[in-house]
């Protein structure tokens, strides 16, 4: 049996009166590529933000590598306001800041690329190496950590070489062409040595040719770095081609899950994307 990496149980996120994510449950197993799809505003990115600790979910829990990582129940004002289900299921409150979650082994990329714009390509990757380092501010300032620093630099260079970014390592991150910026963002996430990689619309703004390359790239990094991938994506050809399983969200609720071929023929999914046919 394959190992379970990420389990999301009854996750709800409510902003004021809006249930952005409503009772979402999903799981991701080791070595899978799982896609989270849905129309605009379905709550996909909100779900990502809950998993990575940017938001504290209103209700529900998230386990990573078998350990409960995030858990919450409606508190304070939300106690009355909460419109979702299962509000008495989770007694414990566990929350982590995003950096802690990255440290546990979940790395992510962003929908609108967020690179460190004044740093070079090399430095962008090198920054991500900081969290696994043992140095203190004194050892780093007075260069007592040169072995560690050297290793971090070598690892970063190796990573850049494997990603085909070595030639541009000294250029500013934001002066790269769009496709390479995406690739750099993924490389930077990989530099944190993650177990699970969350990709938020990696193919956004790419043409079919670039999307094709990206599909190969994602499969390649999955195998090479032994990471599991959960991604949000709108390009259906990309999703259908490389995902092992797909979850479909609509208005915050899970409406379908299954393999690509199951999803393609699912009547709810077709309805969600194309609208319900009158009288059908």
């Amino acid at each position: 049996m394959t190992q379970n990496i990420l389990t999301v149980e009854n996750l709800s996120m409510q902003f004021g009166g809006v249930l952005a994510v409503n009772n979402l449950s999903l799981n991701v197993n080791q070595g899978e590529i799982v896609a989270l799809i849905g129309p605009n505003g379905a709550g996909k990115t909100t779900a990502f933000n809950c998993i990575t600790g940017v938001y504290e979910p209103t209700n529900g829990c998230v386990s990573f590598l078998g350990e409960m990582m995030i858990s919450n129940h409606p508190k304070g004002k939300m106690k009355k306001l909460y419109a979702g289900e299962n509000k008495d299921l989770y007694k414990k409150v566990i929350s982590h800041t995003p950096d802690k979650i990255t440290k546990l082994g979940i790395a992510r990329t962003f929908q609108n690329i967020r690179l460190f714009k004044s740093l070079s390509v090399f430095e962008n990757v090198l920054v991500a190496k900081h969290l696994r380092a043992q140095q203190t501010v004194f050892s780093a300032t007075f260069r007592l950590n040169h072995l560690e620093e050297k290793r971090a630099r070598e690892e970063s260079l190796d990573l850049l070489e494997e990603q085909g970014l070595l030639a541009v390592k000294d250029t500013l991150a934001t002066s790269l062409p769009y496709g390479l910026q995406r690739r750099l963002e993924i490389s930077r996430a990989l530099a944190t040595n993650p177990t699970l990689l969350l990709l938020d619309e990696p193919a956004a703004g790419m043409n079919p040719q670039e999307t094709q390359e990206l599909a190969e790239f994602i499969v390649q990094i999955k195998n090479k770095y032994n990471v599991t991938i959960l991604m949000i994506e709108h390009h259906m050809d990309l999703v259908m081609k490389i995902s092992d399983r797909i979850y479909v969200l609509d208005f915050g609720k899970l409406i379908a899950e299954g393999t690509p071929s199951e999803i393609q023929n699912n009547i709810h999914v077709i309805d969600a994307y194309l609208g319900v046919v009158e009288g059908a």
Partner: protein
Amino acid sequence: MMDKNKKILISISLVVGLFALLFILEQVMPSSSMLFVVLKKGAIFALVAVSMNLLNGFTGLFSLGQAGFMLIGAYTYAILTIPMADRAAVYQYFDGGIIGFTLSVPIALILAGIIAAIFAFLIGFPVLRLKSDYLAIATLGFAEIIRAFFQWDVLGPITNSSNLLRKFPTFSTVLYPFAVAGICIFVIVLLINSSYGRVFKAIRDDEIAAEAMGINLAKQKQLAFITSSFFAGVGGGLLAMYQSSIQASAFKASMTYEILLIVVIGGVGSITGSVLSSFLFIASSEWWLRFLDAETYIGSFHVPLMRSGFRKVVFSIIIMIVVLFYRKGIMGTKEFSIEGIGRFFRRLFAKKKEAQ
């Protein structure tokens, strides 16, 4: 590309050369020369400006508390170094104060930094949750509170209330502030070029992405704030030594603005820019424009406008011009380096050859 050893050798010889030059200047020129005022004060403000740049330029935290931390540093230094014999005279209204010991100058300077850093640590918790303008307002408020706090009567036996602190050891040679400021700036440069410096820049560029890369924002911001305040404290200690007497009321918000001006003119995010602009700033405000304050006659013609205070008008206009034409400061985010100078001259010669 120069190899590393050669670069280090050149840097060391340049530093030795600089100190030798300063030493010779001191032997040759009269000690009352304005040049030494500029050099001493310039070195001190260079240190404080670089410490502010670490926070505002490299970490992207817009803090205006520098004068407050300098005040803490200056007072710590002064209080701990006034000789026992002079305490009765200095603390004449407080029975000689309650501090019953005197420390040596280097230890007092380090303690000046440490006390400032401790204050930074304490106010960092609430204040660093704020962003941009709000952080600026909160730190500015802190500096004002500190100024009032140090003048509080109840603290008189320690801070001498609102009276002058004086008779503490000072420096006589210009080499002293250069050495201390130089060492401190060198340490800041080392920090900025380390892994932590990259983390600071990452926070400046994109907090959300930095956090997603596993950077603990609260901890790293706190670190930058404490480090910056430490060196501001040491700078305050040096300023006390330079002025030979200090009073809390002198550390006004306008002092912070002066430092901010130095940082902005030098280039936000450039260490060498801050150092360079510090000397230029002090030289223009204290020395080069002095003649504008004097009533001047050319022959029998009375030059209009030139009277006491006109210097400041001209100085403000110069600053406006600099900011208008050098949006990113003199240096931008670039650094002044030996290689850079080499490149500049090579390009210059290449152009000349082409012209011929």
